[in-house]
């Protein structure tokens, strides 16, 4: 004789899923759409097991359970509640109304079938035992619950909880292994890029140069110009590869948080920039004593990129100003780099942080378009946010939190 299960569930699709699944396992399944209908069916058909949702119209799962358990004729029918994951209060309340077990949503087909099978097995085991046991009162989340569940019920629940935990844990470990494999693949990929993609470029550049040197008399001006273009392109590609590798390297490795003197860092960087073109007239306004918690090496890359950009995009100003400082934004420190250079059209602002996205042609301002993508990745890895404000011809401000 097939065991009969009553499924009380207001969602027709959920009810259907459970019905098909359990029928496939040889159980006879009836469905009720709310607690009131469920109670009528429990009383009229005496199923071997009730599986009930908690949140339902008219009569919820707790009320149904209490009604089933408070009637002598039906109180021996095992009652399983379908609860949301991470809702301990549901579990306690379920116990208070006398539920025998729980299945946490979302559940896998296999988990549901296993749980139901075990409940029936234990039912047979404990058929003889039972009888009223003393009540336990406890406080959870500021509420008082009185639990009258028997030892068998509690052990059963404990087992189920462990089972759930083991499943979640196994899934997590699987994910971790997958992540490790992906990281290794990425590592191998960058390593290969670093070695193998550069070698052909060296040939392209080297032999173009050899042609220019050894066959100069056979080439007219246009021929030489073409070779110069070939060389420029191969060198640009080499730069792109290096930048891309740097970007990918930033996604890996640990973040070592420590106190970082951003003011000192900014001063060192602008001093280096000034050395590259000592004649340029730039006024630096570096705020004093700005410190942040973050990875010193990575934050150096952030400031390097932002200040180099400020330096680059003010290169056409006869007199420029570059500023570094911090403001308070909703209690968060927002660090910023501001310049009065070429600026940008806010309409394209979203594009700024994408890799290889540029708002200026290479002849206007040089660059590969990787700097701000790098900045964004580092800031995100710190759990922060980066944004830009500006207008064409009126400079730009880049701000970030950590």
């Amino acid at each position, binding site marked *: 004789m097939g065991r009969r299960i009553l499924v009380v569930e207001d969602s027709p699709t959920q009810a259907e899923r459970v019905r098909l699944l359990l029928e496939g396992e040889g159980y006879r399944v009836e469905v009720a759409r709310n607690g009131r209908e469920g109670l009528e069916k429990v009383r009229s058909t005496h199923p071997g097991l009730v599986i009930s949702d908690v949140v339902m119209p008219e009569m919820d799962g707790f009320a149904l359970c209490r009604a089933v358990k408070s009637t002598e004729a039906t109180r021996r029918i095992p009652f399983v509640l379908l609860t949301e994951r991470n809702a301990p209060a549901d579990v306690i309340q379920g116990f208070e109304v006398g539920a025998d077990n729980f299945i946490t949503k979302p559940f896998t087909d296999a988990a549901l079938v296993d749980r139901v099978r075990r409940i029936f097995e234990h039912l047979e085991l404990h058929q003889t035992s039972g009888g009223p046991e003393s009540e336990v009162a406890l406080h959870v989340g500021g509420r008082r619950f009185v639990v009258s569940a028997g030892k068998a019920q509690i052990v059963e629940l404990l087992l189920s909880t462990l089972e759930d935990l083991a499943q979640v844990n196994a899934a997590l470990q699987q994910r971790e292994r997958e992540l490790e494999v992906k990281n290794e693949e990425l590592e191998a990929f960058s*390593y290969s890029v*670093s*070695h193998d993609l550069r*070698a052909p470029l*060296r040939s392209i550049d*080297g032999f*173009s140069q050899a042609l220019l040197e050894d066959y100069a008399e056979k080439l007219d001006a246009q021929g030489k110009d073409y070779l110069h273009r070939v*060389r420029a392109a191969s060198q640009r590609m*080499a730069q792109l590869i290096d930048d891309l590798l740097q970007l990918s390297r930033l996604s890996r490795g640990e973040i070592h948080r420590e106190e970082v003197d951003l003011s000192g860092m900014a001063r060192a960087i602008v001093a280096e920039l000034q050395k590259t073109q000592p004649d340029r007239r730039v006024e630096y306004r570096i705020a004093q004593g700005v410190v942040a918690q973050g990875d010193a090496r990575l934050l150096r890359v952030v400031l390097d990129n932002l200040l180099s950009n400020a330096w680059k995009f003010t290169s056409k100003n006869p007199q420029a100003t570059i500023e570094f400082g911090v403001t308070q934004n909703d209690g968060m420190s927002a660090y910023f780099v501001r310049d009065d250079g070429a600026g940008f059209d806010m309409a394209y602002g979203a594009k700024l942080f994408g890799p290889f996205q540029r708002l200026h042609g290479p002849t206007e301002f040089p660059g590969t378009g990787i700097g701000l993508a790098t900045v964004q990745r580092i800031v995100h890895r710190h759990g922060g946010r980066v944004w830009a404000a500006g207008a064409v011809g009126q400079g730009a401000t880049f701000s970030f939190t950590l």
Partner: protein
Amino acid sequence: MDNRIILLVEDNPDDVELTLRALKKNNVTNEVVVAHDGVEALDYLFGSGAYAGRDLSVMPTVILLDLKLPKMDGLEVLRRLRADNRTKLLPVVILTSSKEERDIVNGYNCGANSYVRKPIDFAQFTEAVGQLGLYWLLLNEGPPGRG
């Protein structure tokens, strides 16, 4: 410096050609022995395989060693060199494409004397090779008792 030999361990024929060209541009006219993989390099150094019977009193003054090589990679070649009394003191310059940190660290850990990344720009490459030649063939006093 004319009798001083350079051993170039490099599998990419383009890189061989470019390195030889760069040496020539720098007026380095020393003999360059080219080994196209790690095994060939060891054969030359230890007088085995195709180099069986070679006069082992003649050793290269400097070895320019690529890392990514067929059969046996550069680090393994370096390990074998350092493990053998006949070659453990030979100056070895790693000359390779990458500047991956782990390549550099592994290179020095295995006993490299120097690590140079091949620049893409041939002018820079020529400059780098010229400086290597000048330093290792002229300036540097090698370990005593070698070719």
